[in-house]
């Protein structure tokens, strides 16, 4: 009964889009409370985080140290508001904790630390290390013949770090087909546009020449995110890199595409405006899938 299946898929996608929108609202509230942090990347990656934690990853918040769980490695730790919001939404810890972002002793440090909260899989903050950590996990899974998958999220500006390219050489050489690397291609970094500061293009060619299987997607299209991750699962003998084209600040119009919002928090008025526009998006998402 293909028609029925399609309906449930559509419902799934609608659900994930709504979750992503909720996560964006949480991010704005968290940053307002914390008075510092990084909105652009957090908002831009909301759809991908929602799709990963509510569709793709084989994880169980009640058994967060299951040795056979899938792992998400966040390399660009500064977008941790979206990680924390997603983990709370998925049930790893109470959502009430989110207002403690960047507060002493809360475990919600300004960059994530392994062991501070259930669901955090690595420490990050100094850019460029996550892909190597993820490759190490993927390699360990191969050595131990464990079936889980590793997903690594990096920024794009972060690709200016040399270590990324060390890991980019390593993972294909070890045939780490259990590794999926999602690059947040939002074209901004703290001081400006990536292509003006230190160009990354042609990124696809670079990755393909390093022997990655490369996919390019719209990082806000839930269907594309899911199907790219499924595609990666079917690739053998090499890792997959998904270049996810995203809009920094996505969902909050006055932040979108602006590198100035990389690491600046909204004022109270701006936050209210942002929340209002995100609330209005809910109706749009629902009507899109009706």
């Amino acid at each position, binding site marked *: 009964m293909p028609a029925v299946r399609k309906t449930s898929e559509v419902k799934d996608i609608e659900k994930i889009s709504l979750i992503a929108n909720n996560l964006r609202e949480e991010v704005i509230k968290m940053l307002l409370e914390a008075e510092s942090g990084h909105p652009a990347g957090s908002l831009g990656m909301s759809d991908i985080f929602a799709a990963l934690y509510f569709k793709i990853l084989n994880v169980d918040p009640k058994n967060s140290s299951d040795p056979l769980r899938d792992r998400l490695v966040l390399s660009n730790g500064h977008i941790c508001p979206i990680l924390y919001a997603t983990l709370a939404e998925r049930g790893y810890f109470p959502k009430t904790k989110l207002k403690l972002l960047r507060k002493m002793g809360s475990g919600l440090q300004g960059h994530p630390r392994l062991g501070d909260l259930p669901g955090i899989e690595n420490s990050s903050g100094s850019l460029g290390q996550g892909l*190597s950590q993820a490759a190490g996990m993927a*390699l360990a899974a191969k050595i131990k013949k464990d079936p889980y998958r590793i997903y690594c999220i990096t920024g794009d500006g972060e690709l200016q770090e040399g270590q990324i390219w060390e890991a980019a050489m390593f993972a294909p050489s*070890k045939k780490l087909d259990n590794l999926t690397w999602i690059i947040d291609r939002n074209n901004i970094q703290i001081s400006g546009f990536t292509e003006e500061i230190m160009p990354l293009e042609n990124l696809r060619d670079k990755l393909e020449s390093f022997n990655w299987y490369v996919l390019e997607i719209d990082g806000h299209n839930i269907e594309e995110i899911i199907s790219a991750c499924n595609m990666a699962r079917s690739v053998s003998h090499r890792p997959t890199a998904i270049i996810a084209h995203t809009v920094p600040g996505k969902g909050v119009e006055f932040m979108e595409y602006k590198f100035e919002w990389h690491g600046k928090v909204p004022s109270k008025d701006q936050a209210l405006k942002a929340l209002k526009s995100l609330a209005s998006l809910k109706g749009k998402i629902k009507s899109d899938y009706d």
Partner: protein
Amino acid sequence: MLNAKLKLNEDIFLKDSELKAERDAFGKTIKELGEKYPDVAVLTADLEESVRLTDFAQKFPTRFIETGIAEQNMASIAAGMSFSGLVPFVCSHAVFSPYRNWDQIRLSICFSNANVKIVGSHAGFSNGPDGGVAESLEDIALARVLPGIKVISPIDYYQTIKAVEEIYKTPGPIYLRILKEPTPLITTQDTPFEIGKAYTLVEGTDITIFATGPIIFEALEAAKKLKAVNKINAEVIAVPTIKPLDIETIVSSAKKTGKCVSVEEHQIDGGFGSAISEMLSEKFPVRNVRIGVNNTFGDSGTYDELKNKFGISSHHIIDAILNLLKE
């Protein structure tokens, strides 16, 4: 003269006494650990033969990871492997790891309290002919400043064997500093070793010599000559664990003798002598004269030439002690 309880090598002062390299001890032991424990993994950045990993690599090809010349990647990969239940040993020359990858050791390993072991070979002057750039004289400082790490610098071949076994069994990040150069056998297979313990090799009353690494042999020679020529009884304490220090043993010796020198094959700033001085200044303030490399880089030369040129041979230790005792 030697402390009988420690079952040390009685022949150590004989002229043709055997020399063995710590890196050989490491290579032999890591292969044996691989046989005993299926979770031991070894990573290297193009220094397989140099750090004596070939036996392990041949026996356990899937657990031997060649990363190519990429120490930063290697350290973070090891962290990831440890998160998935393996016990990785990251093996390179000390001058590359923990130097080139210090940020990765800080963030990927120590900040996560990862169960990763960092092995820095060819430390001190033991890579002498390669020149100043290849001489690791700052690694103790780099390693010991990191929160949560343990820093081990064995004094000889047999102590390295014991240290490697203990390092495997002790959870959390550990830095092991070893030398390339064959050095005197001071301990035996029966000499005790525990991480965190200092050992009194020679008991004395007039002055304490604290030393770490194989350079302690120069301290033993100094103690022997001081006794024979100057009737000075120097206590010689081996401190293979630089972090955490064995405070009790070190302070009680300082209380007994009231004057100390520290000896290391490393910069005196930030290294082993600094660690001793810092601790003593808080627990029992006494003079501690730091003997080591003083604010300079090395040079090409043989191991003995370099020890002599940079002031860490037995006669330098004797001079420092005689000066201190004159005060």
